């Protein structure tokens, strides 16, 4: 029996949200009829019937998130065996639908509160909203999404369509900046002039699974494959007589960093816990071991001490050694600590595998090697794809403290400030202390504040009694 599937509308698309059914079970449809509205991370569009016939079954509900390729409706005689191809296992119900306990009984419409209303029409008769949207000329900035027509073609100016045909530009990869997401000349000119290039359509999937050291590591640390970025080439409109800003081509690593950090800040509910550590003993300890460095040994940095302390603490606070991905929480049995390394064009975070089990000397050698090769571009993908917890250290740049953006899908990141000489109260006296601030940014879906605070207490314990680092 013919099925209508969730289409793949762009290389980055993995799932789509079924916004609204335009047809009901039992409706007769002709091939090409719009049967549903879906929304991807980039666009809203209509799905068309691929066959003519009667819709025998709508397989997903409005608001459901459906992976690409999965059937959403059946067309044809209803000879479906009940339950035979129920696809619901993969369907993630949207917030606000029945699966959530939040209901809105005071909704003015008096509708069944479990019926998801389209946000734009909420509280208004449908007709009013439709009329408004027809009569109001949308400003370009208000509707950034690329829309498609019901036949799946992207809305683009005639000029753009001609240029795309002449220059082999794939408009599905171009973000439109015009009204209603129309792709206009400025959006494609960088491709016409060669200032930007597109990846071939058959590019590898956006994120290859990392050859992770343990099966439970669900996500790559950084992407090895060329992720195709939709990008708008329209510059900021500054026509006030000041020099126009110059478009700078983003290096790929910058783009990947930007996209991942945006995704993180927009989708991960961050919270932050900061603690001040007395580093006097750690400084003393570090001087001591570095003065007795064996031949060929790597000097132990403060960061190495923090890596070791955090790694040991993570074994006791596994909630922070976790990943939240695809709506699920994964625990890691390994402790692989990523070290964020600033490069000219962006960030990369190679990891020290099994840092909890490595000696300080081994950590020092590994980090020196990884940081050195990161800066020379000599890292292998398996050295930065993966990791379970990230440490970002700006201490060498005299930063008192800062908060970092979580490196998804990891549950937490530790931001390390400089060791400052500060007046501290000791008994009834003020003495010069050496203090360092540690800030943890954590994903509230994975862990709560109290646990992060306890983690920091454990880290403090290690750093303030640094001999324990050598024992652990």
């Amino acid at each position, binding site marked *: 029996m013919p099925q209508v599937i969730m289409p793949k509308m762009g290389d980055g698309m993995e799932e789509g949200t079924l916004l609204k059914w335009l047809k009901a079970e039992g409706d007769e449809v002709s091939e090409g009829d719009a049967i549903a509205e879906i929304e991807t991370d980039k666009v809203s569009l209509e799905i068309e019937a691929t066959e003519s016939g009667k819709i025998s079954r709508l397989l997903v509900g409005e608001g459901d998130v459906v992976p690409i390729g999965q059937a959403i409706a059946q067309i044809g005689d209803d000879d479906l065996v009940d339950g035979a191809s129920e696809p619901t296992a993969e369907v993630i119900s949207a917030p606000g639908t029945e699966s959530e306990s939040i209901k809105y009984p005071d909704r003015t419409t008096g509708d069944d509160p479990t019926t998801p209303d389209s946000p734009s029409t909420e509280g208004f008769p449908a007709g009013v909203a439709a009329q408004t949207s027809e009569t109001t000329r949308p400003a370009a900035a208000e509707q950034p999404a690329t829309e498609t027509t019901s036949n799946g073609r992207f809305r683009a100016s005639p*000029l753009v369509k001609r240029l795309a045909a002449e220059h082999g530009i794939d408009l599905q990869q171009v973000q439109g900046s015009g009204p209603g997401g129309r792709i206009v000349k400025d959006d494609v000119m960088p491709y016409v002039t060669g200032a930007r290039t597109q990846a071939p359509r058959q590019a590898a999937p956006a994120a290859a699974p990392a050859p992770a050291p343990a099966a439970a590591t669900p996500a790559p640390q950084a992407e090895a494959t060329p992720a195709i970025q939709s990008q708008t080439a329209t510059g900021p409109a500054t026509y006030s007589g000041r020099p126009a800003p110059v478009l700078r081509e983003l290096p790929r690593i910058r783009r990947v960093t930007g996209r991942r950090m945006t995704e993180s800040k927009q989708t991960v509910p961050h919270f932050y816990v900061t603690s001040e550590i007395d580093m006097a003993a750690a400084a003393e300890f570090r001087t001591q071991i570095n003065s007795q460095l064996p031949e060929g040994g790597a000097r132990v940095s403060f960061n190495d001490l923090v890596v070791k302390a955090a790694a040991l603490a993570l074994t006791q606070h596994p909630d922070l050694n976790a990943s939240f991905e695809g709506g699920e929480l994964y625990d890691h049995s390994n402790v692989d600590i990523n070290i964020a390394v600033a490069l000219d064009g962006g960030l990369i975070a190679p990891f020290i595998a099994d840092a909890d089990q490595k000696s300080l000397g081994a950590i020092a050698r590994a980090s020196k090697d990884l940081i050195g090769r990161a800066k020379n571009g000599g890292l292998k993908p398996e050295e930065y794809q993966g990791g379970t917890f990230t440490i970002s250290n700006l201490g060498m740049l005299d930063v008192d403290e800062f908060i970092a953006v979580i490196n998804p899908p990891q549950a937490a990141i530790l931001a390390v400030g400089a060791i400052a000489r500060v007046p501290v109260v000791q008994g009834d006296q003020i003495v010069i202390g050496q203090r360092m601030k540690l800030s943890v940014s954590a994903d509230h879906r994975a862990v709560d504040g109290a646990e992060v605070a306890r983690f920091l207490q454990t880290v403090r314990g290690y750093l303030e009694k640094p001999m324990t680092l050598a024992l652990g």
Partner: protein
Amino acid sequence: MANMTYRDALKSALADEMERDESVVLLGEDIGVYGGTHLITDGLIDRFGSKRVIDTPIAEGGFTGAAIGMAMLGMKPVVEMMTWNFSFLASDQIIQNAAKLRYFSGGQISVPIVIRGPNGGGVQLSAQHTHSLEGFYGQFPGLKVVAPATPEDVKGMMLTAIRDPDPVIFMEAGALYGTKGEVPEGDHPVPFGKARVAREGTDISLISYGRQVNLLLKVADKLKEQDVSAEVIDLRSIRPFDSDTIIQSVQKTNRAVVVQEQWRWFSVASEVAAIIQEHAFDYLDAPVERVSGAEVPAPYARNLEIAAFPGVEQIVEAANRALYRKG
């Protein structure tokens, strides 16, 4: 070259052609002894006499009909409408006779008449005396309709109009009679059906005719301050129409704003927009914008009159829409 006003350039065309061709006669209300309400024919009665510069009764239908008859018999009358608003009274003669006699007679009769006068508004003459009739007359096969904007064009196109074997609706920009410009000495007729690129540009085509051309030059200045290079096209001739120039321009700029003082519905701008989409569709990056007069009878009050006609701000705004920019 001589620097002269639109008014003097027009008068010199009439005088030159009357010198050259004895069959050229002028008819109209108060054009002789009084010199014309707008002084276009001032002094011509002294120079050419009252048989060639004929003061008529206040009867547009009558004297226009008489002039059509003269034209049918080989004269080359140039009829002044004190303003084009009064031509409604003569429109039956113009449309039913002048426009159709060549057709009705199988080409045996031609009507080489020029009907001229100030068109459009902007000078507080209120609703009955403020019309832009180029779209109206442009509708009728058999008429030629032109709307020159510069002294050079008004002279050159009047020479062409008088020599043309068919009826010509000569729409002067009344508000521009006093504006000055360079006019070449001698006989330099400007052909019909050829638009003029008043300013070259690369980012957007601003298209109009008549007095709005000057407005468009101001708009182009304003857009230049915003780093937008606007091309200004003066259509000059509404019928016959120069499609090639606007199509070439839009192929270069990918965007167009068409401006007119007349009302938008069924107007010159509508026709220009349609021609652009027919012939330059694959070059358009944005819908063609039209800026037109407000859909009301022309107001008398100065502030309302200004608001009712296209102004620099409105056109800049339309240009920015076509450029997908916030101004």
